[in-house]
């Protein structure tokens, strides 16, 4: 194999599984260590820089980092990364003094954003401190987008939204809430220098089956219903509720129903339980609140009497897989099943809708009627118009909206500074030895054997009594410390130096997880099988040295390295060293800071 080039920024970045998986590349282990040290404000600020909404995300993030977490490969459960983030937010001091200040001088460039969800807010945060004149137009009464309109208060208290949205709006910008944008052309004609479209995917998919019209009064589109609950227009629902759909909207609908008078609430899905779109923990939370989830039932008809909904009839199906592994839902032939209910919430999907974007202004749409958006720059085919969040590539989540926003902000900044938008800044990377003494490291390398901690919950009866009462109580400081200690510090990299190695095997012998092998070189596929334990996780790289004096090479399988540093402690020559790799995605702030330094 080619010797590994550890200089390529992606190599060590991939080893930090959580950071690599996080769309915004939050330096997770860095903030987890700070939490363990009790430095909550510092941990918060690291998050705030990367993901803008630590308190919100610490309660609601889809957490792509957790399935990626290395700890989940060496034992049952990953580190509770998301809920540790919340600990930083809950326990921080007043950090307002550490936030950027509103720009003293405006730079004369006007940027407008459509929609005031996380995507637009994050673009605004990145740009406002540097003098941009920002206007955000949103049809809802308050800023926050779906964070405020959709995510139920029992998962995310409004005070947290107010706080973190406030940190951004305090940077100085014009909010035009309660105003709908009906024409992009008209907006462009107002002479803005750039437009950011952060309008989300605001339309709930319909379920057009017999009875829909007749029983309409008690059939609600999930996201519209949730938003009317959030804004206080709806405060009750029938006793018997059926929620149709298996995504996170369905989970929020059923749990909200339980708090608004529904005491017989069911979720009914077409697919199998396992394939539901909702995350495992969302399903768990729903079931914990006595909500059964019935699967393989396809809704056929809403039944009604005198214009009043009486229930839903379902066809029973089962999954059949073809040769290519594609699934088909085929009727089982059993008799249809009827469930009685008073209300139905339809949560079968979300769609984009751009009726307000004219199709003749140079902004191209594809065959699915979605705007053509560049995945790196977030630019559309109109030079002044950028997209991000759910409006760009369909419904995703908050952390993706934030990741898009950072890139869109860079693009807007570059465009308005007369620079090439396609020329992207590389990430900031540092690599530094953590050696403090012969067997002392700057990080705690003693691996905790503890299992994942559960987040304490409010008593169920109390939680169900009020839709605004937060269910999760969050980790206390002690639990947080114990959970933080489970992190393996994957950013503290094992760095190998061929000229120093005397091939004594000490590192091979001590490694608790058999990462290291000295062997003859070979092609990757074959080499992987020849290692001390075969390296069968192909998503994880092999670290291969240049040739050693015996003609062999050092091969390290990164897969399950615990970053315990024992290889480096055992190495008599310092051929292994533990070095902290810190990668920060470049943001507008960093571009401006480096430019300022260059000018001075």
């Amino acid at each position, binding site marked *: 194999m080619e010797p590994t080039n550890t200089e390529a920024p992606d190599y060590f970045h991939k080893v930090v599984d959580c950071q690599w998986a996080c769309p915004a590349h939050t330096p997770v282990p860095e903030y987890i260590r700070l939490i363990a040290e009790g430095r909550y404000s510092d941990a918060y600020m690291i998050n705030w820089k990367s993901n803008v909404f630590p308190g919100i995300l610490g309660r609601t993030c889809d957490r792509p980092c957790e399935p990626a977490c290395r700890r989940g*490969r*060496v*034992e049952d459960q990953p580190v509770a990364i998301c809920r540790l983030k919340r600990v930083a937010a809950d326990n921080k001091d007043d950090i307002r003094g550490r936030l950027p200040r509103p720009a003293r001088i405006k730079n004369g460039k006007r940027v407008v954003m459509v929609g005031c969800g996380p995507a637009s807010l994050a673009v605004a945060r990145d740009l406002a401190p540097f003098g941009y004149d920002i206007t955000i137009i949103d049809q809802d009464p308050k800023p926050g987008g779906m964070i405020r309109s959709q995510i139920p208060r029992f998962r995310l208290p409004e005070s947290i939204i107010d706080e973190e949205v406030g940190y951004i709006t305090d940077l100085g910008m014009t909010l035009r809430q309660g105003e709908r944008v009906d024409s992009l052309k008209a907006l462009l004609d107002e002479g803005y220098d750039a437009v950011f479209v952060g309008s989300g995917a605001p339309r709930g998919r319909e379920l057009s089956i017999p009875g829909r019209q007749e029983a309409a009064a008690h059939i609600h589109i999930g996201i519209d219903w949730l938003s009317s609950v959030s804004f206080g227009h709806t405060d009750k629902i029938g006793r018997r509720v059926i929620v149709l759909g298996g995504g996170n909207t369905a989970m929020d609908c059923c749990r909200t129903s339980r708090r608004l008078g529904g005491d017989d609430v069911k979720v009914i899905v077409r697919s199998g339980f396992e394939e539901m779109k909702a995350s495992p923990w969302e399903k768990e939370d729903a079931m914990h609140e006595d909500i059964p989830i019935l699967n393989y039932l396809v809704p056929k008809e809403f039944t009604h009497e005198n214009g009043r909904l009486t229930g839903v009839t379902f066809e029973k199906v089962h999954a059949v897989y073809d040769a290519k592994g594609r699934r088909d839902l085929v009727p089982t032939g059993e008799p249809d099943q009827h469930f009685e209910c008073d209300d139905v919430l339809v949560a079968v999907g979300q769609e984009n809708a751009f009726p307000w974007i004219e199709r003749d202004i140079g902004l191209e749409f594809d065959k699915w009627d979605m705007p053509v958006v560049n995945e790196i720059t977030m630019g559309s085919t109109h030079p002044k118009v950028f997209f991000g969040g759910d409006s760009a590539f369909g419904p995703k989540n908050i952390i993706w909206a934030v990741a898009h926003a950072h890139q869109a902000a860079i693009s807007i900044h570059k465009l308005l500074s007369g620079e090439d938008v396609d020329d992207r800044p590389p990430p900031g990377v540092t690599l530094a030895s953590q050696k403090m003494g012969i*067997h002392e490291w700057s990080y705690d*390398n*003693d*691996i905790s*054997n503890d299992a994942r901690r559960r987040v304490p919950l409010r008593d169920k009866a109390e939680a169900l009594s009020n839709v605004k009462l937060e269910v999760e109580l969050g980790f206390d400081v002690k639990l947080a410390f114990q959970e933080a200690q489970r992190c393996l510090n994957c950013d503290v990299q094992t760095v190998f130096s061929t000229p120093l190695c*005397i*091939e*004594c*095997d*000490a590192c*091979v*012998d*001590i490694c*608790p*997880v*058999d990462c290291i092998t000295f062997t003859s070189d070979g092609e990757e596929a074959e080499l992987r099988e020849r290692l001390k*334990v*075969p390296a*069968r996780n192909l998503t994880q790289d092999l670290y291969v040295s240049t040739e050693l*004096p*015996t003609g062999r090479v050092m091969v390290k399988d990164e897969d*399950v390295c*615990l970053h*315990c540093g*024992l290889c480096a*402690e*055992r*190495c*008599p*020559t310092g051929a292994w060293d533990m070095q902290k790799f810190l990668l920060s995605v470049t943001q507008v702030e960093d571009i401006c800071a480096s430019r300022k330094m260059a000018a001075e």
Partner: protein
Amino acid sequence: MTYITKPRLHHPLLAPNALGFTRRDYEGKVSTLCAGCGHDSISAAIIQAAYELDLPPHRLAKLSGIGCSSKTPDYFLGNSHGFNAVHGRMPSVLTGASLANRELIYLGVSGDGDSASIGLGQFAHSVRRGVNMTYIVENNGVYGLTKGQFSATSDPGSKSKRGVVNHDQAIDLVGLALQLGASFVARSFSGDKDQLTPLIKAAISHKGAAFIDVISPCVQFNNHVGSTKSFDYVREHNAALNRLDFIEPREEITVDYAPGEVEIVRQHDGSILKLRKLSAEYDPTDRISAMGHLQLHQARGEVVTGLLYVDPDAKDLHDHLGTVQKPLNQLGDAELIPGPAALAAINDSLR
């Protein structure tokens, strides 16, 4: 040395052996030796061998004397029996233990100081008596524990770390073992586990006195230019006789070699030693020619490694003495006090 304990977590693909133990289950406490010490690699090879042999840990006793090498039994087979004897006195304790309970597997672990200097007599007698044991000397040419004085295996002409030249003749433990009648004799190198691990497995399965001299560089006091026990020196002068594949009795042997390239030796327990020859004329079952080969190549400055000699049908001390099969502590009154009739019979036989 390391202050944290080795993490319990292990590779999820780490395979269990027939007893359901992974290799990690055969480990001991974390080593306190210097980073890079050859002795730690030998411990790793012993762990690997015990795991591969599916040894029930409680069936093995590890005995040692004094020295860094003699400390190592603390770092492997943490669930086996152990005895740390006085300096150089491990062989007598092992002999006694073996006589008292022949059902255990005995592993003697010693150093060149422990066995060739202070314990030379003890070493010699345990070998010549044919005690059923595996005797490993972790040979670094110095007294590591007492800070690097030359030991009795230091080669004449080799230099200490501070530049002092050794003038005394070296004791060659392998040559001695051959002369004293050891029925399994091998030499290996801590830096070559592929060679060492099968040798340990074969020695453990061997009935009789099995001796392995393992050259084990002391990174702290004897790994410099001028040393004949350094990583570089051994790698440059290594003259391997053969590569051993150890095949357990229950395994199938596959014949995938050309005649003349491989020698097959079947041991008393049915295990098979498959020796891929690296030195054409070498016959590992001929003691006299083994001694000659060793002398010749050692005189040329080569370090001869591999399986030097094996007598697959050797007898051991118990055979010679006709001892009872049962461990002594399991003998009941009936066996221990046979009664006046038995006494009379003995007396009669002496008349």
